């Protein structure tokens, strides 16, 4: 057989009906559901008199709307509360496992899948959420879908998909100390642009990727969609297997050995070709901060806010000028001089235990700048409980951070955690779009280390700036 890439192998293994020129019919191994993008899909099923084909391959959680405090009380916002209730009703009616608020398995959909061992190499995973790409860190082909597609998967356990292109992003060399997975992916998006991956599955390769923990790999794959990619993938290896072994839904005994044999056959074959290849030198990276209103508008923390006039492309120039106006920034201002009033550590990009440990190391024995609102929102109850077992909550609260309950929170401001107009955040989330964290709010994307250091310094800072 001709050499194939990782994504081609998974794709081929899930083809139910070939598509010729058009979309192919793919089988879906795991369907993750949350309250925001599913109500209209369940309605559609009811309207057509259809059922859910494989409820046992479907799992639902509450994350986008949930408050991050007083979750033992009903949700105060009646519309949010209704949406969550509708999810409970729908999953009961269609016999689907659902994790309600405060359930020990509840959390952000892309945090709980891997935690529970539901995300395994070689699977196809979909969810009505664009950051489904996160699960690609395990060598699973995982991508976001819309509500009509959610309905299609519920009814058929399959999906029509156009065969994507393949793209390799090689991150060569070793990361310098203090530079993180978040900086890798921000630099990649800065390099290839928000449309750079459209129509493609990106496979991240190279020494710096291999050296990342599973948490770091999830951070990288999570933001594949910010480069427009359909999915991100990292070949499974011993780091992957060590993370998975013993997790609740991961195979065990003979099934583990069988699965392991298969997983070891998945990495891209020697001689396989990608539609496009890009290289990035990890050794040259520094922590990154976004300055604009899309995730490709990023700069090293050592740089200054760019001058739109220096951009060659007229469209990019206009977009940069509009972004600076919205962000209330002046070209030429050193990034380290920009004052910040809110720090958000959380979201499916950076709310896992490793992220919290990294932020806590920076916070330990220090104090959040006076006037700064700094919040830490773990990605799930499992992460929160683990962090508390390690005493991280104490470190955060002693430093003046607010220790919250899990959910999407200020990543998209569907719950009460919002920026006020004109407020400026250093956020470990994935989108700096206008209004993403609250109408008129100004978001800068950073790593957990930079977020924690910024909370202490009051302006953008790295941990070493605090010494």
């Amino acid at each position, binding site marked *: 057989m001709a050499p194939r890439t990782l994504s081609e192998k998974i794709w081929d293994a899930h083809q*139910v*009906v070939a*598509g010729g020129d*058009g*979309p192919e*019919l793919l*089988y879906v*191994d795991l369907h993750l559901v949350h309250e*925001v993008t599913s*109500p*209209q899909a369940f309605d559609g099923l009811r309207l*057509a008199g*259809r059922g859910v*084909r*494989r409820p*046992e*391959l479907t799992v639902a959680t509450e994350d986008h*709307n949930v408050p991050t405090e007083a979750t033992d009380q009903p949700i105060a916002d009646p519309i*949010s509360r*209704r*949406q969550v209730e509708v999810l409970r009703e729908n999953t009961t009616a269609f016999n*689907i*496992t659902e994790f309600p608020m405060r359930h020990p398995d509840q959390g952000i959909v892309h945090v709980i899948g891997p935690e529970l*061992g539901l995300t*395994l190499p070689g*699977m196809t995973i979909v969810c*009505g*959420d*664009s950051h489904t790409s996160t699960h690609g860190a395990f060598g699973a082909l995982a991508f976001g879908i*819309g509500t*009509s597609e959610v*309905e*299609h998967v519920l*009814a*058929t*356990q399959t999906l029509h998909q*156009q065969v994507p292109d393949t793209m390799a992003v090689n991150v060569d060399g070793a990361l310098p100390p203090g530079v993180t997975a978040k900086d890798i992916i921000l630099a990649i998006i800065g390099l290839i642009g*928000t*449309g750079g991956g*459209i*129509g493609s599955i990106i496979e991240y390769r190279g020494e710096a990727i291999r050296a990342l923990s599973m948490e770091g790999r999830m951070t990288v794959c999570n933001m594949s969609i910010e480069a*427009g990619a359909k999915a991100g993938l990292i070949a499974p290896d011993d780091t992957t297997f060590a993370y998975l072994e013993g997790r609740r*839904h*991961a195979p065990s005994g003979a*099934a*583990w050995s*069988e*699965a392991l044999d*298969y997983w070891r056959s998945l990495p891209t074959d020697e001689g396989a070709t990608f539609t496009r290849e890009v290289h990035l030198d990890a050794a040259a990276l520094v922590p990154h901060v976004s300055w604009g209103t899309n995730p490709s508008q990023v700069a090293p923390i050592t740089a200054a806010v760019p001058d739109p006039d220096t951009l060659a492309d007229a*469209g990019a120039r206009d*977009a940069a000028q*509009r972004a600076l106006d919205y962000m209330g920034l002046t070209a030429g201002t050193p990034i380290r001089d920009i004052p910040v009033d809110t720090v958000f550590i959380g979201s499916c990009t950076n709310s896992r235990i490793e992220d919290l440990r990294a932020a806590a190391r920076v916070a330990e024995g220090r104090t959040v700048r006076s006037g700064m609102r700094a919040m830490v929102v773990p990605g799930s109850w499992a992460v929160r409980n683990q962090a508390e077992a390690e005493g991280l909550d104490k470190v955060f609260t002693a430093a003046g951070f607010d220790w919250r309950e899990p959910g999407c929170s200020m990543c*998209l*401001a*569907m719950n009460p955690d919002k920026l006020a107009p004109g407020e400026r955040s250093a956020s470990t989330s994935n*989108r700096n*779009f206008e*209004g*993403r964290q609250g*109408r008129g709010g100004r978001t800068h994307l950073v790593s957990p280390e930079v977020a924690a250091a910024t909370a202490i310094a009051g302006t953008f800072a790295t941990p070493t700036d605090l010494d």
Partner: protein
Amino acid sequence: MEPVTTITGTAVPLDRSDVDTDQIIPSDWLKRVERTGFGKGLFSEWRDDPEFVLNLPQFGGASVLVAGTNFGTGSSREHAVWAIMDFGFKAVVSSRFADIFRNNSTKNGLVPVQVPDEVADALLRAVEADPSLEITIDVSERTVSAPAAGIHSAFELDDATRERFLLGLDDIGLTLEHADAIDTFEANRPAWMPSIPR
């Protein structure tokens, strides 16, 4: 979905690139559990500005949205497509669409008219210059034209999707015709795959 064959009407020029779905429909609107009524939320934050193109009377009643490149990036929210259609648009023209937005459009009968950069740009300028310019999108022929501005171009649409547009076919119904193939596939799935019975 209703059949879509030809769309003829005027257009709104939205001269911005990388228009993300958070702008198309902000997250406040996502709490609704219905599929209708999202038109009021379309670009709601940008519409606070009276000069925003969607607020200009000369572009009222348009059925085509002409936008910059990388349209519909970001969140998978299908609410973006529902909002665009509820507002009255039947097609969006851009030189590039984000994958999920494109899929969502085709499931709802909103035509994603993907044309080369020069064509998208020419169309934007032509509509800006003449808000009454009539544009025709022919799904069967896969062409977009504005004869008064001398613009005529093919656009990409795969055969299966074109067929679904023309006949207004139900996607799920079509797939269920392959029920045997799905059964066969399922019978051969590896045993180590997770299963989560309620």
